[in-house]
């Protein structure tokens, strides 16, 4: 097995009295595509958001490349440069053009020249098939296009891992496919991906591993074949019956 990129130990998260994550421990290996599934309210998104500390765990630790990032002394901004994220609602910067969305972080954080950033930005936009939209503002893009730009933006920092938080849930059915195609292509490049999704087809086809969450607990951790043909826990069986 490849080296561990993200290790989560005894992760708990509560919002007030509501316990959202309950003692989750797992690892994500380099190059792995992990799909996080589960019924709504099971804590999938919170789990993902704990991995880059958008949510601070109530208890437990998160390691990135063996560094404990829950340690308050860690410069979390530096860590996040290597931990990209793609959101359900895209969150593109509306006051910047498509290209500027992609080049903003590299220019500001890596100190590369505008010229070089532009070059790389256009290459990334070409990769997601949107190079002709470089000078357009996000409001002029369709949902699927926005999400592809968001993926290019995340890639611009050359992260080791990309976290996807329901990347296709806000899209209309026709554009879901174009985003999934980009994600599939991305998976083939060997980048590590953690994907919270309701796209069973994607999870089955692309993922190397399935994590199934139920009521804040890691109920199942198995290969897609195993999970989809022989789910062990009852909750996963029910879930699959409804989804498939």
């Amino acid at each position, binding site marked *: 097995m490849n080296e561990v990129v993200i290790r989560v130990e005894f992760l708990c998260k509560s919002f007030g009295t509501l316990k959202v994550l309950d003692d989750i421990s797992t690892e994500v290996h380099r190059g792995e595509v992990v799909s996080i599934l589960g019924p709504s309210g099971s804590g999938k998104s919170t789990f993902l958001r704990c991995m*880059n500390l*958008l949510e601070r765990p109530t208890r437990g630790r998160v390691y990135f490349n063996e560094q404990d990032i829950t340690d308050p002394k860690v410069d979390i901004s530096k860590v*996040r440069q290597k931990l990209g994220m793609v959101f359900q609602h895209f969150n593109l*910067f*509306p006051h910047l*053009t498509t290209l500027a969305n992609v080049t903003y972080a590299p220019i500001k954080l890596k100190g590369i020249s505008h010229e070089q950033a532009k070059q790389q930005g256009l290459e990334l936009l070409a990769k997601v098939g949107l190079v002709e939209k470089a000078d357009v503002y*996000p409001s002029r893009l369709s949902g699927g296009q926005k999400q592809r730009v968001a993926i290019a933006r995340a890639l611009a920092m050359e992260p080791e891992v990309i976290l996807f938080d329901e990347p296709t849930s806000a899209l209309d059915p026709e554009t879901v496919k174009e985003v999934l195609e980009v994600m599939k292509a991305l998976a083939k490049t060997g980048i590590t991906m953690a994907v919270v999704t309701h796209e069973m087809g994607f999870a089955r086809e692309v993922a190397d591993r399935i994590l199934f969450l139920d009521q804040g607990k890691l109920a199942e951790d198995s290969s897609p074949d195993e999970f989809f043909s022989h789910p062990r826990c009852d909750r996963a069986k029910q879930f699959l019956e409804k989804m498939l």
Partner: protein
Amino acid sequence: MNLDFARILPDIPFILSGVPQTLLFTFSSVFFGLLLGMLLSLFKISGIKPLYWFAVAYTSVFRGTPLLLQLSLVYFATPQLTGYDISALQAGVLTFSLNSAAYMSETIRAGIQAVDKGQTEAALTLGVPYPQLMWDIVLPQALKNILPALVNETISLLKDSSLVSTIGVVEILRSAQIVGANKYIYFEPLIIAGLIYYILVMGLTYTASILEKRLRRSE
């Protein structure tokens, strides 16, 4: 009724000479007020208790007392308190900046809080530190949204600048009064002064609408 604008025709250049003073006041005050207002609004959303309470108390005092009183206090009390002989211009700009900062801080705070939290999160996950993302991502969007409110504030300041006539600055209103006192006619010069204010406000409104259109380019 005997209106005779011809009699004050030679004095119109004198009244107009108050325009630069008025504009200087207004724009200096808007500039410093905006900077200070931004700082105060950041205090308010910082979550740091002493800063928060400072900003809230500041706003409360400057909104809770008359501007004219603040102006008199700064102009007449500063020399008594510090021995520094403050000029009317300094006193005016200082008071107006401090006062408008209180109003602007509330507007800016609302503007910042109205920017989608996803914007902050997206920038954070790219590894952008908070102060930088506030400046590059959140504030530009907030300012765009609150531009109409800031224009309102600027218009108020422009008109309130007539208050500095009470501490001896010869701006538009004061020069009109001087003309009136010299010729024993008040109606005509004051009407001229009013007209000048109105034209300035219209100019401001027009400029703002152009600026707003430019900012809305991205929509």
